[in-house]
């Protein structure tokens, strides 16, 4: 096909755990430069989709294609190196490492120096250390916590920890950033800051795919939305279309029974 290659394509992907089908014949695509939201009721299979994209799970069938390359079956760190980074539903920072080191670990995704480089202080090692540190500082400034670089990550307030996870993911230099419920536990003012941050990330050229329950945030920030329920896609489109889709209303509010 002469059509331009999608950034991410999920082709007919099914994920089964024993007898349970968590994701069933899912088709999705994400284009470059979008903010794309994946929504659905609890247990719909959203995080499973993230886990398949990032290599935590290998789909039972189907393919996940990123920039024309099949990524299902790759170990997670290889997927990250291809340009997909993520955050977690429950914050999973390296709690006792410093804020700066958390982000530096992310920058190492693009580094190659190892034991010999560090032992003998080889030029590439020194260059990578310097660049990693500089990039990490930039990212801390980007999320506006540069002054806390030396603190242990667990000592940050909750909202800052969420943003630090985003900075750590961005440090891996992704083309696609997956955010798993980034607004969870945030107050309204933190949510609006988050919305602005997501737009700023997109403006730096990173495509964003997010899972979110907060409809205000989803409707406000997304270019396109896909809705899944029981592992199947039930709607796909811009926020307005999705909001008016009867299947979506049904999934969220329950079946409107005739007997009522």
């Amino acid at each position: 096909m002469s059509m331009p290659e999608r950034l991410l394509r999920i082709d007919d992907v099914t994920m089964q755990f024993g007898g349970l089908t968590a994701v069933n014949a899912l088709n999705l695509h994400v284009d470059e430069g979008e903010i794309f939201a994946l929504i659905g009721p609890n247990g719909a299979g959203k995080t499973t989709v993230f886990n398949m994209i990032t290599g935590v799970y290998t789909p039972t069938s189907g393919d996940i294609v990123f920039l024309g390359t099949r990524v299902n079956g790759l170990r997670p760190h290889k997927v990250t190196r291809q340009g997909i980074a993520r955050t977690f539903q429950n914050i999973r920072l390296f709690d006792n490492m410093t804020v700066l080191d958390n982000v530096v670990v992310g920058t190492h995704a693009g580094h190659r120096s190892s034991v010999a480089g560090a032992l003998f202080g080889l030029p590439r090692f020194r260059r990578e250390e310097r660049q990693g540190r500089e990039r990490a500082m930039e990212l801390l400034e980007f999320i506006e916590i540069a002054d806390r670089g030396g603190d242990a990550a667990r000592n940050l307030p909750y909202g800052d920890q969420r943003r630090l996870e985003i900075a750590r993911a961005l440090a891996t230099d992704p083309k696609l950033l997956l955010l798993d419920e980034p607004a969870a536990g945030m107050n309204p003012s933190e949510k609006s800051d988050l919305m602005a941050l997501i737009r700023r990330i997109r403006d730096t050229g990173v495509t964003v795919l997010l899972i979110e329950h907060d409809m205000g945030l989803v409707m406000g920030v997304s270019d396109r939305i896909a809705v899944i329920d029981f592992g199947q896609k039930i709607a796909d489109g811009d926020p307005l279309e999705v909001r008016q889709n009867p299947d979506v209303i049904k999934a969220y509010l329950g079946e409107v029974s005739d007997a009522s």
Partner: protein
Amino acid sequence: MSSTKPLRGIKLPWIKTFETLGTRWQRLPTSARWVGYLAMVLLALSLPSIPGLGDIMTPGSSWERVLFYPIGIYILLALGLNVVVGYAGLLDLGFVAFFAIGAYTMAILGTEFGMDFWLVLPIAIAVTMLAGLALGTPTLRLRGDYLAIVTLGFGEIIRVTATNLSFTGGPRGINKIPRPPSVEGVSWLTFSISNVKPYYYLVIFFIVLVIIGLKRLERSRVGRSWAAIREDEDAAELMGVPTLTFKLWAFTVGAAVGGTAGVLYASFQTAIRPTDFPFILSATVLAAVVLGGAGNIPGVILGAFLVGWVPEVSREFSQYRVLVFGAVLVALMIFRPQGLWPSRIRQAELKQGEGGIGQLGGEVGAVVAQAEDNR
């Protein structure tokens, strides 16, 4: 906080002082720090020569000898195991295997091929690293208890193999292992059965070299990856850390240090047998790491020193010696689970109740107790 858990994290005032000094130390200019390091090395080198010190430290035995073995060798072993346990957070119960492989490499190459200590050393390091790779490649996919059991098995396999093979001398082991080459006419570099000091200087040389190397690794992609793996292995993998590769590096770097200790040991004893490498040695070195404070080099050295030295001074308790030692270990793990001089980061982990040494301490305590039962 501490009132709710009075048993945990007992305060050691002198350690507080150490930590304060440590913080001040970090703030000193680099040149001043190097002067400090040099002074410490000189102090360490002078330990066997300070008149009267031996009578106080080890009244019943040779101070020089104890300084080299067990203390010096234990420090080297503990530094190696600290990479695996302290940095990467992997529980290895068979570290003695690498010590044995280093020692047997020295013994075989030295006796069969007449090779010199300095020639054997790099070969032995390469062999132990390969052994680390061979052990790690299939097993590092396992976690926690499972890894501990497999490494425990590995330690036993090496010993039992050495007992049963003919080129390792079977149960009688290997004799007449060459000593390191002496420098003609320089008494402090003349290695002989009656002159232990040169061995001690040699072990200090290796300890210093290893510390420099480990410090460099700590502050690099390698050290950060180890720390990330210890904190949250899955998150580390998803942030682009090739976790298996770096866990293998932890094994191989640790193995290389353990192998070096083995080479030194063999060329000191000049005769080794499989029974020199019992499981209890793995447990003892692990106890040194955990007791001192996993992840923190000064703490680990302190731990290894105590674990090497305390049994020597408690010789007067004769057959109760090991019992006393075990009781001290258990008490320490109850009252000071983070170790005597822990790294700040590990202290924090423990407070948080994560991947902590508290758990490790419990496991080590149980293992040591069991090993003592089996004696």
